[in-house]
């Protein structure tokens, strides 16, 4: 067995253990340990990338007829994901050294980061459902730790809870799906499953159901509608956490899982349709909501939601490769955008409202230019990376007109809100004191920004991308979709620019979007209603059934029996004799002659 994958997997784990047990007090040392672990993983991932495909495992639970294996599966998909996760992860770790320099919980933070890397790599490397599920849950747990890093404030713990619970809901469906698949096919390993699944002769309904249950996990983890509510609130965590977890890796785990298990979805057109439409709905909703947000991280969070929706929609369109391509490019430019936002926030002393920023072009040049590159990449401006991947998705939908229109609309909206963000945050005059005193961030933060902007620029070009991924080919005319995406992007960017240039406050007010379609409020009242109902039922049951019927009932029966039997104590001797004689007669009669 090849040891390299195990090193990749366990290096961050070792770092987490070491930090939590030994170096808690030495904050700088902890941060270096964590970075070193990720660097090791990255180096070995590169090695794996140029190495052979393969798989290996060992038995973790062995019950004779049933074994749970822990193993790795290296194929093209894995190699790509490994690079993305460890590469972006490494840059974010380095960035965190600068961003979290004054934070007193630094060791805890880096421990959480290492734990997260461990879990994420576990998902990527997993070769069977059960291992993937274990690490899936671990990723959810690490994100809980990281989102709630500043636990002494009121908002982060609530957000962490929300994230974990929404994840858990999705995981419930995921687990059901795993059990269904397992019981139907007798195996959980991806290799065996992919070979066996379509030959099992299962009914289409069954296959659809299994696929959709598995998709529930992706809905939870990748924050699709209706479980998308946790992602914007998760911005309460430190910005590098948002970059790592919620832009580049964890949320992409859902997409990764879908592509990994695509063989489950392939036979069922219904499941693919559901996937497509959930992705598109998420995408549209998020894009609409993003146009009205005032917090830079929220805009980016909704943008992530929107792009994730597009990736999922790509899977639903039968083009998982396009989805992976977009994931790959998105990881780089979204992380870039988040880190850039972090840089701005850091230098403006934790100011996150874009209407308090402005005029940062001269004061923070590196941040400014890298953010611009990231923005252009996101809104699919050629020749940046986003253009190529989004175009791919658009092209895959050319047979499905509603999907095509939806994706085009999302492209427009993306361009609109991103240019709004950029214009308001960076251009124009400084709108607050903090903004006018901004300064560039330290080099440990700007270097990752620069490094990330490189793939944001060039990763889209087919000849470069094809090193990493099999770029899908399309029949039909790719030109048509290219034109449409160009038009959409240009229109969006232009409208954003002109509407928001030199504005001091938001000119468009759409409360529906701004309040996130009131979905959170709906959930809140739904939960409250359910809880009230349950509480009332339990209260009723307790008062009437348990207290009344059982407890008082038993007492009452005893009392009643006693009361009734009292009447036998007549005190009259002859009455006793009478009863006695009657009893004897009856007894003798029944014994001797039976009951006829």
């Amino acid at each position, binding site marked *: 067995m090849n040891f390299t994958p195990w090193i990749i997997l366990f290096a961050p784990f070792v770092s987490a253990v070491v930090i939590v047990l030994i170096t808690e007090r030495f904050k700088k040392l902890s941060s270096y340990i964590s970075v070193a672990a990720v660097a090791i993983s990255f180096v070995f991932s590169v090695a794996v990338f140029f190495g052979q495909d393969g798989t290996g495992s060992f038995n973790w639970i062995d019950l004779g007829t049933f074994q749970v294996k822990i193993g790795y599966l290296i194929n093209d998909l894995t190699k790509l994901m490994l690079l993305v996760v460890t590469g972006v992860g490494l840059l974010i770790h380095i960035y965190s050294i600068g961003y979290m320099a004054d934070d007193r919980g630094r060791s805890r933070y880096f421990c959480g980061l290492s734990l997260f890397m461990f879990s994420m790599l576990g998902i990527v490397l997993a070769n069977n459902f059960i291992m993937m599920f274990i690490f899936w849950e671990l990723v959810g747990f690490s994100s809980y730790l990281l989102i709630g890093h500043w636990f002494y404030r009121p908002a982060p713990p609530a957000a962490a809870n929300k994230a974990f619970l929404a994840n858990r809901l999705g995981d419930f469906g995921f687990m059901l799906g795993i059990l269904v698949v397992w019981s139907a096919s007798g195996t959980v390993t991806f290799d065996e499953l992919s070979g066996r699944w379509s030959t099992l002769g299962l009914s289409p309904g069954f296959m659809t159901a299994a696929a959709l249950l598995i998709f529930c996990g992706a809905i939870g983890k990748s924050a699709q509608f209706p479980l998308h509510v946790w992602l914007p609130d998760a911005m309460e965590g430190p910005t590098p956490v948002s970059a790592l977890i919620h832009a580049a890796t964890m949320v992409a785990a859902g997409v990764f899982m879908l592509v990994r298990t695509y063989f489950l979805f392939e036979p069922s057109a219904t499941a693919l349709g559901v996937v497509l439409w959930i992705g598109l709905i998420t995408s549209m909703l998020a894009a609409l909501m993003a146009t009205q947000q005032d917090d830079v991280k929220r805009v980016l969070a909704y943008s992530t939601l929107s792009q994730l929706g597009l990736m999922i929609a790509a899977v639903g369109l039968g083009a998982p490769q396009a989805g992976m391509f977009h994931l790959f490019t998105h990881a780089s430019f979204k992380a870039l955008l988040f880190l850039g936002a972090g840089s701005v926030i850091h230098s403006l002393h934790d100011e996150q409202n874009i209407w308090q920023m402005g005029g940062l072009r001269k004061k923070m040049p590196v941040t400014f230019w890298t953010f611009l590159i990231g923005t252009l990449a996101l809104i699919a401006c050629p020749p940046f990376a986003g253009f190529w991947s989004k175009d791919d998705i658009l092209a895959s939908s050319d047979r499905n007109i509603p999907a095509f229109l939806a994706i085009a609309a999302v492209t427009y909206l993306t361009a609109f809100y991103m240019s709004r963000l950029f214009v308001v945050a960076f251009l124009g005059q400084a709108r607050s004191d903090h903004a006018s005193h901004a300064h560039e961030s330290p080099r440990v933060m700007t270097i990752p920004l620069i490094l990330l902007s490189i793939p944001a620029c060039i990763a889209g070009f087919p000849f470069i991308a094809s090193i990493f991924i099999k770029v899908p080919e399309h029949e039909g005319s790719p030109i048509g979709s290219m034109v449409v995406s160009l038009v959409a992007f240009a229109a969006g960017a232009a409208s954003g620019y002109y509407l928001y240039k030199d504005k001091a406050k938001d000119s468009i007010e759409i409360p529906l979007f701004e309040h996130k379609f009131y979905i959170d409020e709906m959930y809140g009242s739904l939960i409250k209603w359910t809880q009230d109902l349950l509480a009332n039922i339990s209260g009723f049951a307790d008062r009437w059934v348990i207290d009344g019927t059982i407890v008082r009932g038993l007492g009452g029966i005893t009392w009643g029996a006693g009361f009734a039997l009292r009447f036998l104590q007549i005190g009259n001797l*002859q*009455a006793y004799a*009478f009863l006695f*004689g*009657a009893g004897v*007669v009856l007894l*003798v*009669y029944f014994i*001797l*002659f039976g009951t006829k």
Partner: protein
Amino acid sequence: MMLFFGGMVILNRNPVASALSLVVSFIALAALYVSLDAYFIGVIQILVYAGAVMVLFLFIIMLLDLKAESRRRVNFPAVCGGFVVIILFIKVLSDVCYGFEGGNAKFPPISQGPQGDVWHVGMVLFRQYNVALQVVGTLILVATIGVVILSKRELK
């Protein structure tokens, strides 16, 4: 005769007359015993029952100075219930007896030994039931003591 006087026992209003009817009933019963060749038991019956027990009864009646019972309001449902039970009892009794095959057997074919039944009874009594005999003796003793205690007046 036994039955007739038994009936008189319960029907008489005067307790003394009742007691005397009981005595006659006992004597008739003893006669029945003798007709069954149970001489010993018959004699014992007269000696103990008619002699000692009934005398005791009469003593108590005298002691308590019971007059003839006055008419009292009859508790109709109770009396009816009582009659019902009696009738039922008799019915069951007759059913049993007529179902009892062995009972219709005829004559008891006996031929005892020359010793007479007293000897036999004594033998059985003192051999097999010796323990029971002693226990009954003790029982009588205890009863005597009990009576003495029960009839003490409260010491002032």
